[in-house]
């Protein structure tokens, strides 16, 4: 969590992006100079299916306020089926987090193709706003990791 001059809550958001579609989509957003908040920090993975639920929990533990997972659109996965597995895994994981009372808007899966720079930027803008509304992650953080 960062607090800037006007004290508006600045969430920390980790974005996992698959190398072939979403990471390229993020690059395209950059190439087209489409702004999105610096709250977003991207981690490149070969495929969205590489993202283990424990990475997501780890991010929350360490102080992330939101985690977004981006992959190729269903049917377009570079590895043909990776994102279909991602979809099932994340549906169940997010449902479980919701079940435990963790705010459901802190997690999201979005399909962004390499051509969708604008969608990438728009998604990140939207997601950042949604997480801002929730305020800092308190329900799934590790107090030992909180910055003093």
């Amino acid at each position, binding site marked *: 969590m960062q607090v800037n001059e006007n004290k508006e809550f600045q969430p*920390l958001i980790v974005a996992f992006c698959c190398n072939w579609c979403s990471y390229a989509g993020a690059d395209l957003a950059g190439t087209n100079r489409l702004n999105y908040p610096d709250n977003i920090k991207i981690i490149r993975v070969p495929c969205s299916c*590489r993202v283990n639920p424990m990475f997501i929990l780890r991010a929350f533990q360490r102080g992330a306020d939101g985690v977004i997972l981006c992959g190729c659109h269903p*049917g377009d996965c570079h590895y043909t089926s990776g994102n279909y597995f991602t979809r099932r895994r994340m549906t169940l994981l997010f449902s479980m987090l919701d079940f435990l009372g963790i705010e459901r808007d802190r997690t999201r899966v979005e399909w962004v193709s390499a051509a969708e720079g604008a969608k990438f930027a728009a998604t990140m803008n939207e997601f950042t706003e949604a997480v801002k509304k929730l305020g800092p992650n308190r329900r799934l953080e590790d107090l030992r990791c909180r910055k003093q």
Partner: protein
Amino acid sequence: MQRIGVFVCHCGTNIAATVDVKAVAEALGHEPGVIVSQDYQYMCSESGQNLVKNAIKEHNLTGVVVCSCSPRMHENTFRKAAASAGLNPYLVEIANIREQCSWIHKDIASATEKAIILGKAAVAKVHLNAPLTAGESPVVKRALVIGGGIAGIQTALDIAEAGFDVDIVEKQPTIGGKMAQIDKTFPTLDCAACILTPKMVEASQNEHITIHSYSEVSDVKGFVGNFTVTIKKKARFVDETKCTGCGLCTEKCPMNKVPNEFNMGFDNRSAVYIPFAQAVPKVATIDPNYCMMLKTGKCGVCSKVCSVGAIDYKQEDKLIEQKYGAIVVATGFNPINLDKYDEFAYNQCPDVVTSLELERLMNAAGPNGGTLLRPSDKTHPHKIVFVQCVGSRCDDSKGKPYCSKICCMYTAKHAMLIREKYPDTEVYVFYIDVRTPGKNFDEFYRRAVEQYNVHYIKGMVGKVTPRSDGKIDVQASDLLANEQLHIDADMVVLAAAIEPDKTARPLATMLTTQMDTNDFFTEAHPKLRPVESATAGIFLSGACQGPKDIPETVAQASAAAAKAIGLLVKNSITCNPCVAHSDELMCNGCSSCEKVCPYGAITYIDKEFKMPDRTVAIRRVASVNPAVCQGCGACTVACPSGAMDLNGFSNSQIIAEVDAICK
């Protein structure tokens, strides 16, 4: 102790205008393990690369982080530079501070702060990078084509043309497939046999091509470049090497009332038979279901009449094992079974036929010598109704959800041919839509309507009822005129949907390729890799991948051949080193990883282990073939014990990045 070098690129002003690159280099210089941190105008330039190379040598670096543009842009550049300076290329990480930072942010302070975080994440990751070496795997210079229809023949010819040995496995006694049964082809109306049979002969005579007819693939092992395939050559009870194809046995065989499948059962053949005059190989086959000698041991006529002594009643199925570098699947299609379509009276009335049956009825080599006669009473039909989409575009479980693609065109062809030859015959076509995209296709269809006056009626046939007077009552609706019609037809032709051959699914399992719910093989990418399967070294040709007409099939067959040739010309293939690997001590053999691997890269082996309690146990553990694995990482998450990990994107590396970002 790690010795990491950080190199921050200005990219002219692309980065430097919004990111304080000096501050980034300064901050990253304080990170644990970082011993040198520099910035430079253009890191990707010759002199920028030299900066990196010199630093590697001078400081004996164990890892390099370049803060620059997207790794999709220059990761390779810097990896090569590192390699040339003697550092393993996989010890280089890129922090993307241009596309994902300087270009999207305006505020210098916050952009710099973000660039530092991204740099820290890359440093954290590179701490855990391991040197990786791309493995090599030799390529067997021989291809296997499964299926000997036009797709398989074309693929085999093209591969052979490039100088590689290629084997065709065909389950029927002859190659030729469906196209051999077809009368004329659209949109040119040339005779199918005239264009197909020369190719069949060419295939049989090509020194690079071996045809295994009356054979099936029974097992596939191995991986790209190195498949081991077991082919079952079914006993045909005729020595292929001796038989001259004279046909005397087929004439003398007393068991001559066997339904002739080549003519869709409209006439008979003998128990020893050659499917058709131009069959390749032109060798007789004894049908064990009908041969008296094989069934009762009494007869032996064919053996007596064969002058070359080719008949061998004791012949048995033979398994041959062969190694291949590439496999092309060309298993083709079949019309669906119409038993469930009672409304069209297909099983009750002999004059209700499928389009493929009509092909034989009209074929000069067919049961009626090319004269179109009703199967029931051998009279000329004067009114013929064609029903489109029988089982295609169906939303119920009876049919198929997809469009069979070829029916509109062949029906136009049939209609035109009939109107041409028998102008006194009225032809009705009931359709949902007429779909004719393709070169000269729409023109062809319009000719049928405009020149040949075929009655195209938009609407579905509701019921077909054979009447006692031999006519067939066709009850239908005309959607455009919004009225109910009754047509007293002499013949009804059903455009049955087509489906993949039944042998395709077990084959897909053997090949570890993917199939869709309709049993069509799934291509590696629907747009960009349409003739490759997701499994490396397996290519797709023809209708096994989806409904196709002949020109499309041939185009795809050649494309598949080109892809196979592209593989076969290599002496070895370099494997992507960022592949999964399993920690055998942790693997519990549950098979989860195997189930999610799209490439069939994971197999299980029983291996002996010294257990922690000093006992020795045989355990089932996963083994990843690095030549086949593409590195998606699906298995790493499916594995509950975390035994499976991915080189280059390991659990600990990704966690280190997460930690660094959230610090």
